[in-house]
C-alpha cells in the first residue's frame, strides 16, 4: 500500500518527479566523473550518455518511441526534455553572449549552415546509392535524413517517398544526433572547437539542435549559445533545399 501511494504521488507530480530524478542522475554522473575518471570525462557528458542508455532501456522495455518517458512514472522527463523546455533553456543561454563574436562570424556562420546541409545530404545520398537505392526520391529522402531527422520525413513526404524509406531517413537523423551528443566532447580538442567562432561553425555544420545542445553542454557550456544559434537555422534551410534544389540535382544525375 505504501509503495502504491508513493508511485501514485510520483506519477501525479510527474514534472516534479523529473526534477528529482534528473538531479540524482546529474549528481551520480559528476561523482563518476571525479571519482572514476579523475575529471577527465566531463560530468555532463556522462549524464547525457547515461540518459541515452536509459532511453535505450526504456525503449526496449516499453516498445515506445520516447525512451524513458514512456514509463508513466517518468512521463515528466518527457516534458522536461521536450522541445518546449529545451528551446526555452537554449534561449536563456544567449543572455550574456558576446554580440561581437556573432558579428565577426556572421557570414561564415551563415555559410556553414548551407554547407552543412549540402554536405550531409550528399554523404547520405552516396550511402543510399551504395546500399542499392537507385530512384531519386529514395536517395534524396535518405540524404535529407542524414541532415536531421526532421528534414528527412519533411522531404520524403513532399516527394512522396515510401514509408519505409522515410523511417530509414528518421533513423539516420537520430543516429547523427546521438553520435553528435556523445562524440563532440571527444573530438572537440582535435578540431579546435574551443572558441565562439568555431562553435558557430560547428552548430551550422552539424545542425541537429538536440545533438548540438547535448554535445556542447558536454564540451563547454559557455559555447552553447553560439552553436545553438546557427543550428536552429539548419532544419529550416534543410527543408528548403532538400526537396527542391538538392532533389533536382539528384534527379539529373541518376
Amino acid at each position, binding site marked *: 500500500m505504501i509503495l502504491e501511494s508513493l508511485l501514485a504521488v510520483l506519477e501525479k507530480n510527474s514534472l516534479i518527479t523529473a526534477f528529482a530524478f534528473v538531479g540524482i542522475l546529474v549528481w551520480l554522473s559528476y561523482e563518476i566523473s571525479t571519482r572514476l575518471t579523475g575529471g577527465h570525462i566531463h560530468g*555532463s557528458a556522462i549524464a547525457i550518455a547515461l540518459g541515452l542508455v536509459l532511453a535505450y532501456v526504456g525503449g526496449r522495455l516499453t516498445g515506445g518511441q*520516447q*525512451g524513458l518517458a514512456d514509463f508513466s512514472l517518468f512521463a515528466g522527463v518527457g516534458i522536461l526534455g521536450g522541445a518546449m523546455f529545451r*528551446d526555452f533553456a537554449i534561449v536563456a543561454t544567449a543572455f*550574456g553572449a558576446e554580440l561581437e563574436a556573432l558579428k565577426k562570424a556572421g557570414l561564415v556562420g551563415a555559410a556553414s549552415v548551407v554547407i552543412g546541409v549540402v554536405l550531409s545530404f550528399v554523404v547520405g545520398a552516396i*550511402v543510399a546509392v551504395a546500399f542499392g537505392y537507385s530512384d531519386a526520391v529514395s536517395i534524396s529522402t535518405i540524404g535529407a535524413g542524414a541532415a536531421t531527422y526532421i528534414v528527412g520525413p519533411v522531404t520524403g513526404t513532399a516527394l512522396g517517398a515510401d514509408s519505409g524509406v522515410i523511417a530509414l531517413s528518421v533513423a539516420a537523423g537520430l543516429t547523427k544526433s546521438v553520435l*553528435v551528443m556523445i562524440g563532440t566532447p571527444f573530438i572537440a580538442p582535435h578540431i579546435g572547437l574551443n572558441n565562439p567562432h*568555431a562553435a558557430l561553425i560547428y552548430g551550422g555544420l552539424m545542425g541537429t539542435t538536440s545533438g548540438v545542445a*547535448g554535445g556542447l553542454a558536454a564540451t563547454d557550456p559557455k559555447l*552553447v549559445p553560439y552553436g545553438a544559434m546557427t543550428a536552429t537555422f539548419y532544419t529550416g534551410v534543410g527543408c528548403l533545399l532538400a526537396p527542391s534544389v538538392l532533389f533536382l540535382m539528384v534527379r539529373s544525375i541518376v
Partner: protein
Amino acid sequence: MVIYGVALLAFCMLVGVFVGDILGVLIGVQANVGGVGIAMLMLIVLSNLSHQKFTLGEPTERGIGFWSAMYIPIVVAMAAKQNVIAAISSGWLAIVAGVAAVAVSFAMIPVLSRIGGGERHDS
C-alpha cells in the same frame, strides 16, 4: 523581480518562434526557420544594450540565469527521451549514413574556422 526575467525570456522565445513560423510559411517550407535563433539574437542584443543604456536589475537577471543554468539538466532529460532504439535498430544503412554525415561535418569544422579567420583562444 525574478518573474520579469522569466517573462522577458518567454517574450523573446514566443516572438522568435512566431517569426520563425512566419518565415517558414513565406519561403514555403513546413518547418520553423530559425525561431530559437531569432529569440536568442533578441536576448543577446537586449543584454548587450542593458550594459550601456539601462540595467535589468539583479533579480531580473536571476530569472534568466536560472533557466540558463537549467540547460544541462534539461539536455540530460532530453537525452533520456530520445528514440535510441530506432537509431540503432533500423539496420546498417541508417547507421552508416548518420556516422558518415557526422564524420564529414566534423572534418569540415577546422577548414571553415580557418577561412573565417577566427583567432584561437587556447584556454
